């Protein structure tokens, strides 16, 4: 997840303090990805070094700095918005790896792994749907973030449904006579 570009976007309307950026980032994303202030300042430092932001005027009495976008920062931000995020740039999927291992590890019932995971995913999907009902429709940014989590959870449930069906078919094909006597 790109904190860097998120911060650049929040600076687009005008200069801001670091603590303001933290609060606005969380408000915009519906607190789905809370930041710690240390992360915010270290990212700001990197952006300043890279010439994408600069201190705007002198620090205030408490030593706090207001940051502003530079032209290079604006260009970076525009590039981010215009470039789709590549599928393969997402992190390795622990769940897919776990299921691949479950299928091939003796003594592990892959169907049980799938069902337990699906219970969890379905229940999260229900919780997210409830949370969404509490977000006002006008709050577009939050609604869209919650929708993204909902669609991702749904994709996981659908994929697990498919995994379960595959495992069931594989089992009935492998052991028809065993199935028949049970």
């Amino acid at each position, binding site marked *: 997840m790109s904190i860097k570009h998120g911060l650049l976007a929040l600076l687009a309307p005008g200069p801001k303090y670091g603590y303001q950026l933290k609060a606005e980032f*969380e408000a915009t994303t*519906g*607190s*789905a*990805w*809370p930041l710690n202030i240390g992360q915010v300042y270290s990212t700001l430092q990197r952006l300043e070094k890279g010439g994408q932001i600069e201190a705007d005027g002198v620090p205030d009495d408490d030593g706090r700095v207001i940051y502003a976008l530079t032209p290079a920062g604006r260009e970076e931000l525009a590039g981010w918005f215009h470039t789709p995020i590549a599928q393969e740039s997402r992190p390795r999927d622990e769940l897919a790896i776990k299921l691949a291992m479950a299928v091939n590890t003796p003594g592990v019932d892959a169907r049980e792994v799938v*069902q337990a995971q*699906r*219970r*969890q995913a*379905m*229940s*999260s*999907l*229900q*919780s*997210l*749907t*409830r*949370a969404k*009902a*509490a*977000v006002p429709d006008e709050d577009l940014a*939050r609604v869209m973030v*919650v929708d993204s*989590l*909902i*669609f991702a*959870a*749904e994709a996981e*449930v*659908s994929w697990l*449904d498919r995994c379960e*069906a595959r495992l069931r078919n594989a089992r009935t094909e492998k052991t028809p006579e065993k199935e028949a006597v049970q």
Partner: protein
Amino acid sequence: MTANPVLELRNAAKVYGGGETLVTALHGATLAVAPGELVAVRGASGSGKSTLLHLAGGLDAPSSGDVLVEGQSLGSQSRKDLARLRRRSIGYVFQDLNLVPSLTAAENIALPRELDGASAGEARTEALAALEEIGLRGVADRFPDEMSGGQQQRVAIARALIGARRLVLADEPTGALDSETGEGVMRLLRARCDAGAACLLVTHEPRHSAWADRVVFLSDGAIVDETTADAPTVLDLGALT
């Protein structure tokens, strides 16, 4: 503590055919739906979802076990009483819609109210309100074959929701709808339940089943799983709302 269930299945089973062609569509299913509750049913094609709903709506009798609506066993009702109970208390959205082709959208929706003794004028007013609620103001006087699949589906939903039905049974009510329209229908069903109705919903879309208080999963005619909204989500880790 909990109110008496509106719908109760007690070990209800359904067997079709016999001998060589015998199919057990539903093994003994036990399930209760309380007023205000929305229960979703998931499961692969052929797992017995529609069979379960048919039994719940009295469209078909269980081979064994019992089905109760508002505390009354459907098996002990006369045909006439059963028909009345179905008309008054149960709204049913069929998987294949079952709209009457020779009636307009508004007439289809008004039909159960008229059969129930409402005047034609009253029934039409209610039907128009129901169409409005489901976002279909313009199609009141169109016949089913003059509407899109998604419009017909919403007419079928409006027909099931009209009047003060205490039990709503919906079989894939969002199958022909786009994501946003489908969500609108789910909001409507949820609102009905929040107002006190009991609802049993069959859907293959996990996103729609997530509106339910409980999600049951059918596999080869048996309820194998049930989930509620108790898993923490990434949102709980932050401070949303």
